[in-house]
């Protein structure tokens, strides 16, 4: 055991049992998985990404590139969990990743011997030929050999939540600068949200030994947290990762891995601290080689001696502070090598554990732990999310964000204020001052960067997680990838899940050396969200499975469900597709029965999903005249008219019927899918294009339940339901409409037909819709009424040649759909000018026709392309395509609608439907698209 007898912020009265790769161990409350592993002398925790080298714990924070483990089993497994930030809990099961068959004996470590294959750019250089093998063979092989943890491939059983936070000041990071900033702003009465990724606020004060106002810095932390907790305007979110900064002061955060926060803040202080740089020398990845700040943290915060013989290799004063802190708790380092004195560690020696180090003077010293203090990189990543660029500061030897985006202020070590006193002062200043800066113990922060140890033989890692070495960076430079962005992509440095938090700056520096540039000229990459990995599950939240999107039910839904409906999604709506009856073999039999029942008797269809818009005002008819190609100002009250709407570019946008219920009041319907778009279009027309018009528009789609009652017996059915209403042709002619009362409820009846039969649409306020559908079927029972769904509706509209979604596809004109005569010449309307463009009125454009197979036994399929008989099947000969098909029970064979060049002039001609990937070629005859009752006698019945 490496646990020190005393000390650390752990609760030794609360032991916690856990397991790693099946072996059982014990830690304490307050441990992370990493500190508990080290306390149990576990130093080999992972294998590296490409070379499968033994890896240990490098850091004590969220920047950890090596110590990624899988937590839990089966569906509950969470791969790629950082052991360094995971609080230990009782029963925790962790397992190592990327090794086979075991961590100790990883046969894939042969990749290290094959390392010439895995140099920078290996994806681009190796396995180039034959290309066909890439997806099938090479990539899966590489992916299996090189990788991280695996997903369980089972549904995620975790529950996720979402929340919103609004504040005057968002403080990111609860280290000394962040705590001071939150306290200053909190005392000033600002609404403060303090977000910290650790389970416990304090930041580096938990890991280093300092004094504030003459007492332990921990006392200051405790007192500050206590005061913050007492302020009602301050909220602290611990174990919360702020993963991204977005426009308008919006931030994304994840609390406890489970709750997604969307935070809107007037101002934000990024007190995100700094990350210590590893040093680049041979063997710098052997388990036992760690950052100095990590060694200090494990010893101070968790009471764990990471080794028995510890050496320190430093380029900065902070490394000397680590030596002093270790000595103070009784772990005297074996040696301190300060690069500023000219001495270097040239090589670390060991396999699965560090055994010794070699120095530049040739000495070899036996150690089991080497603490690297390579200087500090301010964590400016979040500040770069919106495009602000960090600049190199020679003064502190690091990148700083001099010009963060508006509303954002850098503070503490993130702003380059590395010393404790300077960090606290900068936090208070960022928050607007008003609070004295406490006295702190000396905390020198001098540093001189050392980017590379010369004459160091062996693999020296820059990006641990992606196994990128100093030689890879040099190779990239030699091969011409001399910008940091190119080097990043060529070597994959910084592209692993840790996003180069420990390695990017070292990589930039090595590139600068290789290309003879300064750090300033070399530049650095911009961090993009997420700052730390975020699981897809937490972003999805509750929006999974049936809750992925809202579901809209019509008021007739329950009735349809009781009557065996099969439903289809139409946008968010559930619509009855058909109503199968016992004994029916397939949907085609069901749909054909519904069509025949309607055409020979009476059928009822729920059409409530159609968009409905109430247009009201003295200028209502003027607005409609400008929206539609045809005229509505002449429509008499109590009558309906079919209308066609164009986009301003001249193509058809939508269609539907509009009814005039009063001089200044119209009831507009749209197709189901375009309901929202047309509402928006009408609002644009009346608010932006013609604001001088006195007219209002309101969506009433969900206010009315509407049922189509169609077929020769439809009037008989309604006569039973509405015995007092005169439904004769005189009182309610085709395209007539009236309002009346049904059982005390306002109701509307329309003489409209989509099926081509005599038909009515009956509408009541939506909450009476269930009552009405039941009453309709009760009234129609003796007449043999049948419910029909969207499929039968579709069959009947194809039989009648009515265009629908497949024909209103955004690429057709009114003329293409056979409705060119509707374009009014007496008024302006949206799309009028552009619809007259020569190419849009060219008769050679594909235009609506009907088709049926010459051999009546053959079926048709939509999507097939049209060719003249004998024409070669090449694009130049393409004459259009089949848009909609159905089996017509009325005619006894398949029919279709198609868009055919010069279509109307070609009725009677035989052409070919070319469908090479399904049924091959089918000979069809071109006919009038109205297959049933072309004279339109039935609707007037």
């Amino acid at each position, binding site marked *: 055991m490496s646990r020190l007898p005393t000390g650390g912020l752990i609760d030794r009265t609360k032991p916690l049992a856990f397991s790693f790769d099946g072996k059982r161990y014990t830690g304490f409350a307050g441990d992370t998985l990493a500190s508990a592993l080290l306390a149990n002398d576990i130093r080999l925790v992972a294998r590296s990404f490409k070379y499968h080298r033994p890896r240990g714990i490098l850091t004590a924070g969220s920047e950890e590139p090596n110590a990624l483990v899988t937590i839990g089993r089966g569906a509950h497994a969470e791969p790629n969990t950082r052991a360094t930030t995971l609080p230990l809990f009782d029963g925790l099961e962790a397992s190592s990743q990327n090794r086979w068959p075991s961590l100790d004996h990883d046969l894939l470590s042969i990749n290290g011997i094959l390392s010439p294959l895995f140099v920078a750019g290996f994806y681009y250089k190796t396995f180039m030929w034959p290309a066909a093998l890439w997806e099938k063979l090479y990539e899966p092989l590489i992916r299996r050999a090189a990788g991280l943890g695996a997903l369980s491939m089972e549904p995620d059983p975790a529950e996720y939540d979402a929340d919103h936070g609004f504040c005057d000041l968002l403080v990111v990071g609860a280290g000394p600068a962040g705590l001071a900033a939150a306290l200053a702003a909190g005392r000033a009465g600002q609404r403060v949200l303090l977000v910290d990724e650790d389970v416990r606020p304090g930041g580096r004060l938990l890991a280093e030994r300092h004094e504030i106002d003459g007492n332990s810095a921990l006392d200051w932390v405790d007192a500050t947290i206590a005061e913050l907790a007492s302020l009602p305007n301050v909220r602290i979110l611990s174990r919360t990762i702020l993963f991204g900064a*977005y*426009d*308008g*002061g*919006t931030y994304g955060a994840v609390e406890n891995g489970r709750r997604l926060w969307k935070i*809107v803040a007037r101002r934000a202080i990024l007190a995100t601290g700094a990350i210590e740089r590893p040093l680049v020398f041979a063997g710098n990845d052997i388990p036992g080689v760690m950052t100095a700040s990590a060694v200090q943290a494990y010893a101070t915060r968790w009471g764990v001696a990471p080794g028995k013989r510890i050496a320190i290799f430093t380029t900065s004063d902070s490394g000397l502070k680590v030596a002093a802190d270790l000595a103070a708790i009784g772990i005297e380092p074996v040696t301190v090598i300060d690069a500023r004195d000219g001495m270097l560690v040239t090589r670390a020696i060991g396999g699965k554990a560090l055994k010794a180090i070699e120095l530049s003077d040739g000495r070899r010293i036996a150690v089991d732990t080497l603490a690297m203090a390579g200087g500090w990189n301010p964590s400016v990543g979040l500040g770069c999310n*919106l495009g602000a660029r960090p600049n190199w500061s020679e003064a502190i030897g690091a990148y700083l964000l001099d010009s963060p*985006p*508006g509303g954002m202020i850098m503070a503490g070590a993130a702003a380059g204020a590395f010393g404790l006193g300077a960090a606290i002062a900068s936090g208070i200043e960022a928050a607007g001052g008003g609070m004295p800066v406490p006295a702190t113990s000396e905390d020198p922060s001098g540093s001189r960067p050392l980017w590379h140890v010369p004459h160091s033989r062996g693999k020296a890692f820059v990006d641990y997680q992606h196994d990128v070495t100093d030689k890879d960076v040099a190779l990239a430079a030699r091969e011409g990838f001399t910008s940091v962005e190119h080097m990043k992509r060529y070597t994959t440095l910084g592209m692993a899940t840790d996003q180069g938090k420990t390695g990017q700056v070292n990589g930039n520096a090595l590139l600068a050396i290789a290309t003879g540039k300064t750090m300033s000229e070399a530049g650095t990459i911009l961090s993009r969200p997420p700052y730390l990995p975020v699981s897809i599950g937490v972003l999805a939240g509750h929006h999974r499975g049936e809750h992925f999107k809202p579901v809209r039910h019509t008021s007739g839904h329950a009735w349809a469900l009781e009557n065996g409906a099969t439903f289809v999604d139409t946008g968010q709506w559930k619509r009855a597709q058909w109503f199968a009856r016992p004994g029916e073999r397939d949907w085609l039999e069901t749909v054909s029965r519904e069509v025949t029942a309607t055409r020979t008797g009476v059928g009822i269809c729920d059409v409530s999903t159609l968009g409905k818009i109430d247009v009201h005002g003295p200028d209502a008819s003027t607005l409609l005249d400008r929206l539609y190609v045809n005229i509505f100002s002449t429509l008499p009250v109590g009558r309906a008219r079919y209308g066609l709407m164009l986009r*301003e*570019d001249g193509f058809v946008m939508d269609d539907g019927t509009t009814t005039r219920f009063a001089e200044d009041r119209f009831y507009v319907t749209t197709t189901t899918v375009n309901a*929202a778009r047309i*509402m*928006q279009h009408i*609002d*644009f027309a009346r*608010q*932006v*294009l013609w*604001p001088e018009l006195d007219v209002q528009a309101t969506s009433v789609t969900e206010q009315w339940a509407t049922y189509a009652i169609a077929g020769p017996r439809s009037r008989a059915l309604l006569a039973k339901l509405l015995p007092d209403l005169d439904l004769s042709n005189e009182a309610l002619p085709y395209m007539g409409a009236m309002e009346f009362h049904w059982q005390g409820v306002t109701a509307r009846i329309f003489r409209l037909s989509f099926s081509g039969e005599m038909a009515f649409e009956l509408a009541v306020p939506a909450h009476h819709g269930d009552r009405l559908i039941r009453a309709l079927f009760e009234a129609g029972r003796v007449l043999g009424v049948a419910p029909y769904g969207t499929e039968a509706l579709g069959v009947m509209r194809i039989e009648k040649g009515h265009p629908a979604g497949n024909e209103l596809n955004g690429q057709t004109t009114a003329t293409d759909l056979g409705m060119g005569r509707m374009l009014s010449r007496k008024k302006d309307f949206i799309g009028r*000018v*552009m619809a007259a463009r020569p190419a849009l009125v060219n008769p050679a454009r594909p235009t609506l026709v009907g088709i049926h197979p010459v051999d009546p036994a053959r079926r048709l399929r939509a999507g097939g392309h049209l060719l003249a008989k004998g024409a070669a099947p090449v694009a130049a000969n393409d004459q259009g395509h089949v848009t909609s098909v159905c089996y017509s029970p009325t005619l006894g064979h398949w029919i279709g609608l198609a868009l055919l060049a010069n279509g109307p002039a070609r009725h009677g001609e035989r052409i070919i439907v070319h469908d090479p990937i399904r049924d091959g070629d089918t000979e069809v005859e071109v006919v009038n698209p109205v297959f049933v009752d072309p004279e339109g006698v039935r609707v007037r019945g």
Partner: protein
Amino acid sequence: MRIPCPFCGNRDTQEFVYRGDASPTRPDTDEAMHDYVYLRDNVAGPMREHWYHAQGCRNWIVVTRDTRTHEIISAEFPR
């Protein structure tokens, strides 16, 4: 991004539908229609744009936004 709707106040952009450049106005002459429908400037800097508060007050709003920084300079009704 957040848009200060003149009717509803400061709201998340997810509630809005974007349309595009608000500067072109529907012309009175047929000759000018092609440019109105198809020609747009690719503005780098403050740009007047049409946004529709679809999940709010259902007003069309003219938002002046700096396309380089996403800073919202103003948001007002079309007239």
